């Protein structure tokens, strides 16, 4: 009889393992359901535009020339912010954007890998030389955010902080509306 008792015990082992395997599968499937739902429904996708640029000629011509950096309001009312991340600062050092507006950040680097993060938001991308990183977002409330570099970019990395000033849509139009490229300094 001992044989049958132990056989029964092994059945219990296999049954419980099978149940746990189902539970594990359910957990993983649930996680993916959430990821796919948010990815599609909220269009929550990581920045992944695979767009190359010649890092050695950024300053000479094209969209990342110094005169072209900063916030540019588009004819459709949205804003494109072009930013250069370089050892050890951002250009512009203080970015100004309007509230309740679709904002696209386009960032690149002329030297090494940097990070681009706006604290308190989901704006977060690596800045890899040779590529343009693009992040889309929308700021609902006015306020000020820190914008540090978050990848080690050699000694001096710790000094690489900038700021993002979010101002009310109407005030933005009043104060910065006349400029082709806005940043915090009024010109």
């Amino acid at each position, binding site marked *: 009889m001992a044989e049958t008792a132990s056989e029964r015990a092994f059945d219990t082992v296999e049954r419980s393992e099978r149940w746990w395997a189902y539970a594990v599968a359910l957990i993983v499937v649930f996680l993916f359901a959430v990821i796919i739902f948010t990815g599609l429904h909220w269009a929550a996708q*990581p920045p*992944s535009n695979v767009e190359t640029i010649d890092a050695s000629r950024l300053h000479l011509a094209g969209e990342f020339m110094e005169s072209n950096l900063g916030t540019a309001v588009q004819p459709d009312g949205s804003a494109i912010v072009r930013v250069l991340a370089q050892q050890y600062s951002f250009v512009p050092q203080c970015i100004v954007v309007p509230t309740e507006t679709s904002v696209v950040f386009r960032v690149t680097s002329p*030297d090494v890998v940097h990070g681009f993060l706006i604290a308190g938001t989901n704006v977060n991308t690596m800045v890899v030389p040779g590529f343009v990183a693009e992040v889309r977002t929308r700021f609902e409330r006015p306020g000020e955010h820190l914008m540090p570099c978050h990848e080690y970019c050699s000694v001096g*990395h710790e000094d690489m902080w900038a700021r993002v000033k979010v101002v009310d849509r109407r005030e933005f139009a009043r104060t910065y509306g006349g400029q082709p490229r806005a940043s915090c300094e009024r010109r």
Partner: protein
Amino acid sequence: MNGASRLVLAHFWVAFAAFAIAVPLGAWQMLVRSPLHRWVDPELYYRAVTAHGTTLAYVFPTLVAMGFGYAVCAVSLGRPLHAVRLAWTALWLVIAGAAIAMATVAAGKATILYTFYPPLSGSPFYYVGVLIAVVGSWIWIGLMVSHFARWKRDHPGLPVPLAMFATTAGALLWAWTSLGVGAEIVLLILPNAFGWTSTIDAGLARMLFSWTLHAIVYFWLIPAYVAFYTLLPSAAGGRLYSDKMGRIAFLLLLIFSMPIGIHHLYADPQIGPGFKFLHAVFTGMVAVPTLLTIFTICASLEIAGRLRGGRGVLGWLAALPWDRPLVLASAFALVMLGLGGASGLINMSYALNSTVHNTQWVTGHFHLIYGGSIVIMYFAIAYELWPRLTGRPLVAPKLVRLQLWTWFVGMLVTTLPWHVVGLMGQPRRMAYYDYSDPALAPQAIWVSLSAIGGFVLVVSALLLVGVLLASHRRPIAAIPPLAFSLAIRPPRTLPASLNGFRVWMLVVVALTIANYGYPLVQSLLLPSTGVPAYRVEAR
């Protein structure tokens, strides 16, 4: 231990010596960037981070895996090791490589952190040192595979002992995953460092590094899991719930830990959303072996607890022999694995990663998983092996328990505040922060707390070294030999798929090609992405 004692002891001692240097460096870094200390020369800080990371990522866990691998080989296969001189050569290569790399870092010639993302570049000696150490570990891989194969040849039809099966899985995992960083160094970095190429592709380099960067953690994890499955059940006074489930878990780790590295690059502009999502799916799959392991280990512990007279739904927990280092350490490891696993699920969640990417959250996450869970199991393995290696009992069991407690508490105090400031948006890898800025001021208290945790960890690390050293001076005693846990139903025969790796290695290679092939080819075909290297050197 079948003549392997000196070899195993040498590996563990070199590993713990490196560890004892690297841990205080870590604590020093936490102190000087906290509000408790004035700012220091940032170059010194980054130099210390490079030394800490390089030692603890490439040297310490590799040596523990190697040493423990030899012990598993000698004990579980029940016969003396062959090619012992080759094993010593491998150890010397790791020591020499580590010494070259560390001397370069100490001289301030390679302040590039252990991830050395190009176009940052350091002295070629650094990369060559890392390569030599990796080549040493490749010899170990060959030795594990040849011991595995020879034993199978001499015992046709018999199941390879689970401990050896798992160790070989770890060796094969490391063989395949170390190729990524190897290719990055040999094909991209060294040609540039020697002046043969004028530019370097930063995006491609990051992709190759990601090939290694995730699976390496599973290579570190394997010895801990081997201890969970094959040492813990008998240490707790019970049996392993299921031998077969163990094999399945190790095979899943081997298959799924490799083709997921791009989840480190979710925020990178050089990879499209499709492959990022694919890697997210496979990262979800790698949670499966861990969830299976947690079940099997808890079930094995329940058997032990009930055999010791525990009753009721949770009574078996109280009945476990908590005074045994392996049991205590395993419980701590499971708690930290649970917390770190939860934060890991957030990191791997495709879009959610944006909230925490490259903040202190990530530092908190991997210190909890690796520094917490995995390393505390390394301690437990050392405590389990030491009497068998030296023939002398451990000194002061109370100190051993204190050491494990301080590591556990210290690691929680260090890493939980890191998660908090990460959510507040604190970027990682900075030599100092201006806490007088009102936007950063709320982080000051958390960072200070975390720094205190770092010093608890230093005390614990010193305690470990002290206990192990003092144990060498105890009188010789009769020590029961190391025995691996029996399963409640030890397998008599196994299908070839659960007793070898031939098919599985093909799956690993195929999955890697499927998940990395397109992004790598795309990266090679993109125009004008190279940039000149930037040499980081101390002034």
